[in-house]
């Protein structure tokens, strides 16, 4: 066992972990942050994507110990029902999800995509999320969501809450 000190979603944690413990299992099982999912065992699907010091990584391919001394942001830290990240709001508005299992990783990847390229073309969006698999949407509405989020982020629109958005209903 070894001690890791990790900052997750702005809070500092210190835990004893097995050296082989994967970051995704640390997040899910040690910290109880179950928004990050495990969809494969070959780093292919991207359901486990989180930000490590602001850059997207597949947390099934990082040992918890490796993340020691770094800052991790999971979907829970991206935004919450009181203040949705524009990407979360865009996924909702554009119906960019169905079963929702790939969604947290997909949203995190898309945020990192816009960090690298704030105004991507559709082709750049599609290339930018090729590390994340989705079986439900055919990606079409995900691309639309990223476009919408890019516009919202460019306009620096304030974060809105679920409560503000719900009664409006229509997208």
């Amino acid at each position: 066992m070894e001690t890791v000190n990790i900052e997750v979603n702005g809070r500092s944690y210190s835990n004893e972990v097995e050296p082989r413990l994967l970051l995704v299992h640390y997040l899910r099982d040690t910290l109880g942050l179950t928004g990050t999912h495990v969809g494969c065992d070959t780093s292919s699907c991207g359901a486990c994507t989180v930000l490590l010091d602001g850059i997207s990584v597949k947390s099934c391919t990082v040992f918890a110990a490796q993340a020691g001394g770094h800052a991790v942001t999971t979907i829970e830290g991206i935004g919450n029902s009181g203040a949705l990240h524009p990407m979360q709001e865009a996924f909702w508005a554009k119906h960019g999800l169905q079963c929702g299992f790939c969604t947290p990783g997909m949203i995190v990847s898309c945020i990192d995509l816009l960090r690298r390229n704030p105004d991507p073309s559709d082709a750049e969006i599609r290339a930018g999320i090729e590390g994340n698999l989705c079986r439900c949407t055919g990606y079409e509405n995900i691309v639309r969501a990223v476009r919408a989020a890019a516009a919202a982020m460019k306009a620096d629109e304030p974060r809105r809450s679920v409560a503000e958005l719900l009664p409006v209903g229509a997208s």
Partner: protein
Amino acid sequence: MSTIPSMIGSPIRRREDPRLITGRATYVDDVKMVGTVYAAFVRSPYGHAKVRSVDVSAAKERPGVVAAYAAADLIAAGLNVSIPVAADLPGLKKPAHPPLAIDEVRFVGEPVAVVVANTPYAARDAVEAVAVEYDQLEAAIDLEKAAAGPPYVHEDLGTNVAFVMPVKTGDPEAAFAEADVVVKERIVNQRLIPCPMEPRSMLAHWDTGAAHLTLWTSTQIPHLLRTNLALLLGLGEIKVRVIAPEVGGGFGAKLNLYGEEIVVSWLSTQLGRPVKYIETRSENFAAMTHGRDQIQYIEVGAKKDGTITGLRMKIFANLGAYHQLLTPGIPTFTPLMSPGCYKLTGFDCEVTGVFTNTMATDAYRGAGRPEATFMIERAIDLVALELGLDPVDVRRKNFIGSGEFPFTTITGLTYDSGNYAASLDKALELVDYKGLRAKQEELRKQGRYLGIGFSTYVEVCGMGPSAAMPAPGWDSAQVRVEPTGSVTVMTGISPHGQGEETTFAQIVSAELGVPIDSVSVIHGDTDKVQYGVGTFGSRGTAVGGAALKLAIDSIQAKAVKIAAHQWEANPDDVEYKDGKITVKGDPSKSMTTAEVGFTAFRGVGLPPGLEPGLDATRRFEPPNFVYPFGAHVCVVEVDADTGEAKIVRYIAVDDCGRVINPLIVDGQIHGGLAQGIAQALYEEAVYDENGQLVSGTFMDYAMPRAHQLLAFETDRTTTPSPVNPLGVKGVGEAGTIGSTPAVVNAVMDALAPFGVKNIDMPLRPEKLWKAMHANSNGKVNE
């Protein structure tokens, strides 16, 4: 009854999304219980082998290991069961299918032992310590060879043929006698792997105090699973609760009862602790049901003018090594839907179900119907090619006319409603067909190969009339108007991405005039929800939604009685209008559902003899299936240098009857198109000759990524169904069923200058390149 029009047909944001986009949803693996232990399965590395011995003793000695069992241990402890198959056919062979293999393994990934440990990591380690001695046997892998003779998957059966089903209707002899041409082809519908993003996941909790089992499992059919599980475990049904919490996709592969679910549940009863099992993706590839896998020999008779006269088919359907819940039933849909949206006078088909040393096939998005649609839509193009006709004209020539519904097909189905020409017209207009053909001609001169492919499909869904189903076909809804005017809906369907928490709330809001945010739709828990059949076969709204409409009708009828009593009016003069109860012709008299609901709750001021409360439970037994249809056009360009087929445009005009939420309907179409296109171009489950699954990871199985797909152009026509009170059809599978042949027809059209008629899917660049560079002897010019 009138409705609030704005709610029906509105692109309302999904009510289920806030929890999903913020990472606060609860999938099975997110359910945490104190004292949980973790199961891991030891699986066969061989496609076919005798199991000489299974020794779990070393595994038991590993740190953290709680228990380990081989099949013999399960049987000794009283669990001697076979995984059930619900579909039945005359003469069907049903070999035993134990949850852990006893003395023989018949596919790679078949479980042979299970270990339980305090952590998932320790359980995985302990799997390595289980010693299994195998004697490898020759495997039956090739479908047609397996149908013809040994080796046998089940030696005691003396054959690999599980059933032969003939379907002969009309007058095929006469139909072929009047044909000017007979087109023959061997059509392969390759095996696919469903790949929901959430693998199979389960958590069983045996409450020793209450002697009660709760199983959280990632399933499409919680109630059917509960009934079967109770029977298998010898527990009263009331002692079993099944919960399908958030379910990360199913696509038919979670319409099942898996051996792992039986074993994990049983383990919890034995150990008195919660037992969790989350399969790895590799296990999911190998041991969750696969889909498709048919070889079809077809003969199509046609007159010179393009009139299709008859169809002969010999279908070999690969069942895999064992039956799962619906395995033998799936290919029986194929002949039924083979006539598609065309009129024939003769049909002669034989389906042979064949065991092989592979994972069982079962329902996968479309389930037996994509195989029919792909065949007939390819056949139409082959006839057009043979006769030198435009494939659009051949389709039109043979369409069932819009005035001919309800139409009984040659295979005995009654199509409810349709207007096939209208959807085709719309698609042709959207794609500018004439202009596209001219462009194709021009590009060919430049050595560029554009192809235009069509698919005019019809499919059968809204499963279905109980008499025509291997399980009940009805579904249920309970609607409760709560004292404060909120409305609770308990639905028997079990959505896992289809969005009925939203669409059903829209229906309630429209019909009862309550704000959509005051409606809660509950599903997927057998202790909360009355018996329901589940979500599959595009039945959620067509059957579950119809049951909801019936329950709303009952509520409205009661509310009208209460309001009439309050107003001392004749109930015949009282009606629901725009979500309010009013007296006909007197707008000054008006009550809301909430007001009547409170009166009903309070129990004062009710008509004599009327029970208090405003709720209703209803079931909808579908009098028929529903038959969505549509016209898809795919435009591809095949690169002569690389052989890569790139889809340039994809136009889908679909008709799923009345639309409740266009945002969700389009989403279903998008996802369906992606899976259908993926079959045409990318995906293929491959076993080697020993039964090793070669395509067993996302690195080897080509499930498409975003850059491999394109922006779909969707549109619709609306032909309501007369089968249910909502006028809806299904939409979950339509996109998948319609799209595969459109893509392949487009690629074949692109390759027409090379004399290419047929290439088996998936249309990988290497196959297309070879076809484009073959000389007249069929040899490839390097």
